[in-house]
């Protein structure tokens, strides 16, 4: 056996215990995002990955299109556009919400790495968000493909020249923050629950699906449900993206029988109202998410949940 060189230990440098602020945060985020992408993209069968990434959101849209066909026939073009856009965007929402929660479950149950990630000096929440970015990107890809399928095969009329790109960019940015915030809330829940929580993100997304005017106008809902929907940032995000991509299209928020019209007297919210309300509700949900995550984290530490494995 060869002799090992003995290093003379240096005196402890207290500076090592200090972080480097935003540089550490950025590095942690980028590293986690790269890790997330490697894990999502590490397919032995890329074709299967593609099929699953595309088939799921396309099938969701087709379900709704066929429901329309069955009842309204080919004439309900306006409503068909409404449904396709909502369905496409909802696929993106689902990916964003599920990404963070599944990262917690994956790391805790399958890879058993959660504790190591947690005790590293990088902020746990930043790492989690970074991990979720890959799935958000996949969701965005799915949404674009559904829109493309809608344009090519399902009669969705799209005029690039009519798009309000500035509004689209702003709404997407703010909405992304809201979606990530919802994902953080779900991740906080999954830190407390057991292995079978894989289905929880989809369950929550499905429930929100009812309230946000994704595939039918809010006016159809009872008034209390409409009020709940108006308090959610996703409602305003969907409305904003629809307005930006398909100006003049049907509003999910306004219209006859809607709470919005009863409150404001206007048929539908304008761009300013949409952006403003989106900002306000997104800020609210972000604050709630941050608080929920910290509470969950503390409880998880208190009860030793970070490195447990569950299973039934």
């Amino acid at each position, binding site marked *: 056996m060869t002799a090992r060189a003995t290093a003379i230990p240096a005196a402890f440098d207290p500076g090592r215990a200090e972080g480097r602020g935003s540089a550490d945060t950025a590095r942690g985020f980028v590293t986690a995002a790269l890790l997330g992408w490697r894990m999502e993209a590490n397919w032995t069968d890329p074709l299967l990955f593609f099929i699953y990434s595309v088939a*799921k959101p396309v099938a969701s849209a087709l379900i709704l299109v066929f429901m329309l066909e069955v009842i309204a026939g080919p004439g309900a073009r306006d409503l068909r556009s409404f449904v396709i856009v909502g369905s496409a965007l909802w696929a993106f929402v689902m990916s964003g919400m599920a990404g963070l929660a599944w990262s917690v479950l994956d790391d805790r149950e399958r890879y058993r790495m959660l504790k190591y990630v947690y005790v590293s000096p990088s902020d746990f929440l930043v790492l989690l968000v970074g991990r979720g970015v890959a799935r958000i990107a996949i969701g965005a890809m799915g949404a674009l493909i559904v829109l493309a399928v809608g344009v090519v095969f399902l009669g969705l009329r799209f005029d690039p020249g009519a798009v309000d790109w500035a509004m689209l960019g702003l709404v997407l940015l703010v909405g992304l923050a809201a979606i990530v915030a919802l994902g953080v809330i779900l991740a906080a829940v999954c830190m407390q629950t057991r292995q079978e929580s894989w289905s929880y993100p989809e*369950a929550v997304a499905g429930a929100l699906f*009812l309230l946000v005017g994704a595939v039918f106008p809010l006016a159809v809902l009872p008034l209390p449900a409409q009020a709940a929907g108006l308090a959610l940032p996703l409602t305003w995000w969907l409305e904003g993206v629809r307005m930006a991509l398909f100006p003049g299209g049907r509003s999910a928020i306004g219209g006859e029988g809607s709470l919005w019209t009863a409150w404001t007297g206007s048929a539908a919210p304008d761009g300013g109202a949409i952006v403003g309300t989106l900002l306000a509700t997104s800020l609210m949900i972000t604050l709630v998410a941050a608080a929920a995550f910290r509470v969950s984290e503390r409880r998880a530490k208190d009860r030793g949940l970070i490195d447990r494995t569950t299973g039934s």
Partner: protein
Amino acid sequence: MSALARPAAGTPQADAAWDRRRVFLANLRSVGGRAYPRVHGLFREPSWVLFEILLPFLTTSAFVFVYRALQAPPQYVGFVVLGGAMTAFWLNVIWMMAAQLYWEKDQGNLELYFASPVDMMSVLFGMAVGGLIMSSTRAAVVLAVGAVVYGVTFTVDQWGLLLLVFFLTLAALYGLGMMLSSLFVLWGREAWHLTQLLQEPVYFVSGLNFPVGRLGFLGALAVAIIPLAVGLDAMRQLAFAGALGPTGTPPPEIEALILVAMAVAFTWMARVMLRILERLAREKGRLSARWR
């Protein structure tokens, strides 16, 4: 005498020779044993009540409101409610059965099952029984609450056939789940994504929210191979007797026979697939994640 052991009664060879009765009883007990953690897990982690029942009910409600927005005839709301109820079983099949052996392998339990003297079919059946409790609860809530809240009226002429179709659908679904569980272990990492692929695409071709007959050839194909499609269509025809008009699909009696064939075929294939799985896993050493 140490409590660690008991006095040996015979020889190893005699102990290894189980008669049919003992084999049967051991397999029956393993069904109960494997169902045990599923059932008791429900009571220890009650969050499933919210996430597996209440929230999915809201998802079903969303589709109800789509039809309301379209001012669809009332039986279409019934379609959605019935579809939502059956979704519970489908999700249980693909998440808690098809993907389950893959999770067991990840956790290191799979090799313990294979090294035990009981049939893996018993273990899978135990998983199915355990999962049925959660999915039955969900289905019952969606059906009952949906019917009351949304005013769904069922018109059932043949209760016996309806119940028979329901149980045949479950048998076919869980047979399919058992078959898929072996495939998923063999396909490894892809299992996760196959599970995803088996949700919305299957909902679409099964006509979860609309009559599957409207899909034409695709619908006919679904009725032939997907238990959810054929079972749901048969149950709709029986639960809303006379309200549908021509569906473009076989009558419920024929669909019941299709379900019988599916149940038998899937269960038989599950057995074959498990044997193939075990043989391949023993040849290639894939039963455990740790041992390589």
